């Protein structure tokens, strides 16, 4: 939470962190937020959900490798980058869209689409402010398929 007091007309962000532990399959969590707001929405539940994979290599229609990105070895925003592979294992074209990523920490580049059976690379770079920070975040992408399939890829930087 970036602040716990929100003046009239202002806004605040609440960051909900979900540890996937050794969960497997569909998981739904409902963190409770308690506030002084009136009348009935003072206390309210948020909802986060995910389908946790035991075998990320068996994901469909995309297989992302690696499925956890460690950015600890990146130091120069201009020259250092981390490339991850996105393989389309389906018989259909897949179009990708970025839903969310920590823009203040990383820059993200994704292919707009991947042909059936082909692979393409995604690229992550640190921003200037990301170089000086240790963090555990994630980025979420969504496919333009009928299920609006989403993938969330953990991003971690442990060393400066």
């Amino acid at each position: 939470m970036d602040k716990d007091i929100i003046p009239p007309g202002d806004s605040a962000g609440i960051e909900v962190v979900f540890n996937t532990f050794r969960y497997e399959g569909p998981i739904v969590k409902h963190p409770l937020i308690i506030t002084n707001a009136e009348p009935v929405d003072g206390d309210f539940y948020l909802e986060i959900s995910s389908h946790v994979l035991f075998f990320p290599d068996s994901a469909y229609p995309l297989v992302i490798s690696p499925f956890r990105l460690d950015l600890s070895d990146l130091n120069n925003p201009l020259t250092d980058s981390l490339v991850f592979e996105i393989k389309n294992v389906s018989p259909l074209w897949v179009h990708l869209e970025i839903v969310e990523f920590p823009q203040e920490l990383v820059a993200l580049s994704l292919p707009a689409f991947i042909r059936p059976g082909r692979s393409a690379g995604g690229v992550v770079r640190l921003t200037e402010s990301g170089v000086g920070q240790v963090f555990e975040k994630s980025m979420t992408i969504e496919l333009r398929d009928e299920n609006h399939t989403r993938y969330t890829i953990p991003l971690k930087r442990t060393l400066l």
Partner: protein
Amino acid sequence: MKGYNKQAVLPALVLGLLVGLVACSETRITGANSKIAVGPRLGIPHDAFDFGLSPQISNISHVFQLYSVGTDTVRILDIQPG
């Protein structure tokens, strides 16, 4: 008053007055047809987020935006994990 049942009209009048008072206490007209709720009020455009497929043993995160849409300061008193 012919045709009026006093016993039925009086409670209806009182009820109407109460409803009016409650309505007045909850909103304040600020002009140009806009209304602001009186007191601390929250606006939450999205209260659910789907991460989709994710790997085990990882921390993944999402930022929910909360808006203070009333006339008083909203205080986040506690957050309890789900």
